[in-house]
């Protein structure tokens, strides 16, 4: 027994010592996590105040855990362990206790009214008619934007532009498909419609036509109503319709929910990632063309590229084996007029790039970066096949990236700015570049985020 005790102590302290020694290998500490798509915590700067209030020590704590050399292997192991907790083939990950705000009902017929801000009637909407559903009372949804100091990743075989990830809120995982859970935020939706879109319309009244395209996410389009109700998410069609109803009549407010819903059996959303596919973006593009009065190009007209092996943000968040075993394929359609673009990074440095870049050599989580140079503050493309001087500016988040390639063949110039990182103002850009059309192309999570919609206000600040 004595020997057993000695051996036991020796084994325990040896294992402890080895793990401690691994932690001391400072050169082996990673700086970024590929699977999480983020830069890991850096060692905190020492200050006397930080020492006094404990923030320095807290920073060391976080740094040590975040950059421990075996961390990724540990996390993988921990997720394998969690698979033993029960039947997790269908589950809600990252919370799910939230509830969204009640969506005010909107009438679209003559004399229709909305109980929106001030109780005034809403503007004309280019979208479909609304279900008159109301949801249980509220709580705000998750914030979907990333801080501008998010990590950078290589975009593919070439040295790609800096990319920035997004944070997932609660996720509904059903078999090999995950869905982001959507919670309506009335304040944010009203801010987007009235203070962002309407304000842009007012500032650009005689200069550009303003469009708004709120992109629904997969949970709203793919899941049936009963499932949506049972997991406590809000109806995205109603949410979009409500936001659109608050917009100025001269804004062309699209609701592509119905169009996407009509194709819900097709591959219009990724299963392992929160984005839509290029096919989903294409269907929305046909709606945009309808609103603009242009003829959409047929999908077959574009050169199609395929990038298989995509494990997106839902996989990073859930580490679900079912997703890992069934990765997505990113299909991309190369514009006919040009595949060249230029992006400017945060420093303003311009780099020539590709509207559809080759990501076949990219890591499994980076395949969506093939679109439009991804989330750069400012980008543009010149289509030499069109010489009428037409120009469009897209105010977008990462959902816009898959949409922009389809616009290239309709304008001589397409500019796109990411509202999270662009430092200038929209009116200045529109005037400077002679933009004809301004399109807000944002996913519904961003119009349900106080932080995101507040950030958008910066684009319209007086100069």
């Amino acid at each position, binding site marked *: 027994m004595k020997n057993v005790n*000695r051996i036991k*102590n020796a*084994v325990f302290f040896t*294992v*402890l010592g080895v*793990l401690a020694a691994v*932690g001391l290998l400072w050169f082996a500490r990673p700086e970024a996590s590929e699977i999480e798509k983020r830069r890991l915590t850096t060692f905190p700067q020492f200050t006397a105040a930080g020492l006094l209030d404990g923030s320095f020590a807290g920073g060391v704590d976080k740094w040590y*855990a975040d950059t421990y050399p075996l961390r990724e292997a*540990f*996390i993988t192991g921990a997720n394998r362990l969690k698979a033993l907790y029960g039947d997790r083939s269908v589950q809600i990950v990252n919370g799910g206790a939230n509830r969204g705000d009640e969506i005010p009902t909107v009438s679209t017929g003559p004399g229709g009214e909305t109980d929106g801000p001030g109780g005034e009637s809403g503007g004309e909407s280019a979208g479909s008619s609304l279900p008159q559903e109301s949801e249980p009372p509220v709580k705000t949804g998750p914030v979907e934007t990333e801080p501008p100091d998010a990590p950078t990743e290589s975009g593919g075989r070439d040295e790609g532009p800096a990319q920035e990830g997004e944070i997932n809120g609660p996720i509904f995982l059903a078999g090999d498909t995950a869905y982001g859970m959507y919670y309506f935020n009335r304040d944010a939706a009203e801010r987007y419609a009235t203070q962002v879109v309407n304000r842009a319309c007012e500032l650009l009244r005689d200069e550009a036509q303003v469009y708004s395209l709120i992109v629904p996410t997969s949970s709203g389009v793919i899941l049936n109503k009963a499932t949506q109700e049972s997991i406590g998410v809000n109806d995205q069609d109603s949410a979009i319709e409500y936001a659109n109803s608050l917009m100025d009549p001269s804004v062309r407010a699209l609701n592509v929910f119905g169009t996407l819903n009509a194709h819900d059996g097709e591959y219009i959303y990724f299963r392992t990632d929160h984005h839509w596919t290029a096919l989903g973006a294409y269907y929305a593009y046909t709606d945009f063309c309808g609103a603009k009065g242009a003829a959409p190009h047929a999908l077959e007209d574009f050169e199609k590229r395929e990038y298989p092996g995509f494990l997106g943000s839902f996989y990073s968040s859930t580490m679900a084996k079912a997703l890992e075993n069934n990765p997505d394929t990113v299909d991309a359609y190369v514009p006919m007029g040009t595949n060249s673009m230029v992006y400017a990074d945060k420093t303003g440095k311009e780099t020539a790039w590709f509207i559809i870049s080759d990501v076949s050599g990219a890591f499994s989580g980076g395949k969506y970066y093939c679109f439009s140079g991804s989330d750069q503050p400012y980008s543009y493309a010149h289509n030499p096949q069109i010489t009428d001087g037409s120009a469009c500016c897209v105010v977008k988040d990462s959902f816009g990236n898959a949409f922009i390639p389809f616009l290239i063949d309709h304008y001589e110039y397409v500019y796109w700015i990411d509202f999270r990182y662009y430092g200038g103002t929209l009116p200045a850009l529109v005037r400077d570049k002679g933009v004809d059309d301004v399109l807000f192309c944002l996913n519904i999570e961003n119009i349900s985020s106080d932080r995101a919609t507040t950030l958008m206000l910066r684009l319209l600040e007086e100069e």
Partner: protein
Amino acid sequence: MVFSSLLFVLLFLPAVMLIYSLCRSVKAKNICLLTASLLFYSWASLRFTAILLFDVAVCWFLTRMMEFYQGRSRKAVLALCVAVLLAALCAFKYTGFLLDNLQRLTGFPKAVPDIVLPLGISFYTFQLISYAADVYRGKVRAERRFWMLLLYTSLFFQCVAGPIVRYGDVAAELRERTVTPAQTSRGVSRFAVGLAKKAILANSCAAVADAFFAGDAAALAAQPAMGLWLSAFAYALQIYLDFSAYSDMAIGMGLMCGFHLTENFNYPYVSTSVTEFWRYWHISLSRFFRDYVYIPLGGNRRGKGRQILNLLAVWLLTGLWHGASWNYILWGLYFFVLLVVEKMVLGRFLEKIPGLVRYVFVAFAILICWVIFRFEDLGALWTVLKGMFCQNGNAFAGLTADLALRGNWALLLVSAAACTPVWTNLRQALRDKARGSALARTAYAVFDVAHPALLLVISAMALAGNSYNPFIYWTF
């Protein structure tokens, strides 16, 4: 730094154990422990360390003074010591609560200051009070060396979350102690089991508890009853596994360093009465209130009326000790009522009720108690209590509750089993069986040798990525 952080487990602890093992004399070991303890404590904030040093200095000085006085003067010195210690505790813990309530009643003051509670102040204040009271009673001699009293108070294993160790229990070991391989072996097992309870089970149960408890009042009102009961169950498991894990780790590290700390839990969830529950839950706190509040107030020696008053005082204080919020006071009163009913109304009739019925009643009472404990917002608490009994207009079950149960049934089962003596009994049975044959002995020895290291690795895996991972009792 918390016990369940990678920095503590994989850097602080091995470094301290290595240096400690290299120290030859007890004095050197004590200096090592004191340095480590002050570093551990200061990690949260140097300001907190100043408060700790102040409390210990006051207590050390006044208890030394006590030796020169007798009778009323001695009592006055004790009263002064207790008053200073409680004043420090109240200033940090209850000022905000009092001002907040004053503001609600009178509008004054305009702004309620946000006072940060020094780490573990509730625990070490009670340790110092028990020490001063024991010196006053002549149970222990006043410590002559300030740094030894500081070591007793700041020992990093138990300073911030207990057990509330009495000076008399460790005084001898502070001066002379030995560490045997058998003792270290027990400590290693205890520490590893505690770490696994916290890192693997408690943290996972917390996620299930949050699944239906984490929203605001409006979200809570929309949750199905089954989800709320599931969260209540998971929270009850979490709070025991979390807190008892802390004690396990403290006791385990104590054993590795030659200390025998007070046991703090003895499977309270298998109790068949509320009285029994409190006999086995947070034992060191119950003992403190019994010996330093209830009995000095007269206990049950001055008639039923006085006894009820004494119990009321004890349970109000117990509630307040757990937190400066009305729900903790309500929580204390809840137990006061249950205990009074048990002691004075049911009496011996309780013993005639079948054990299973009593167990079900106690389990129900405990689930409700943790719901009260969880929600500081009384509106949210009421919403949840109504929701648990289907009074919020929701269906009893729902997809979300169904998914949470299906996805966590094995976790909840193992966690529930970890709250009972089943593992201890199983291990004992295996050990007994192993005596029969050499092969079985070897198999058991392999298990005994491997399990702490294995639990350590799995716990480290579970902890990875938890950059924010506080204990529930951390700020108490």
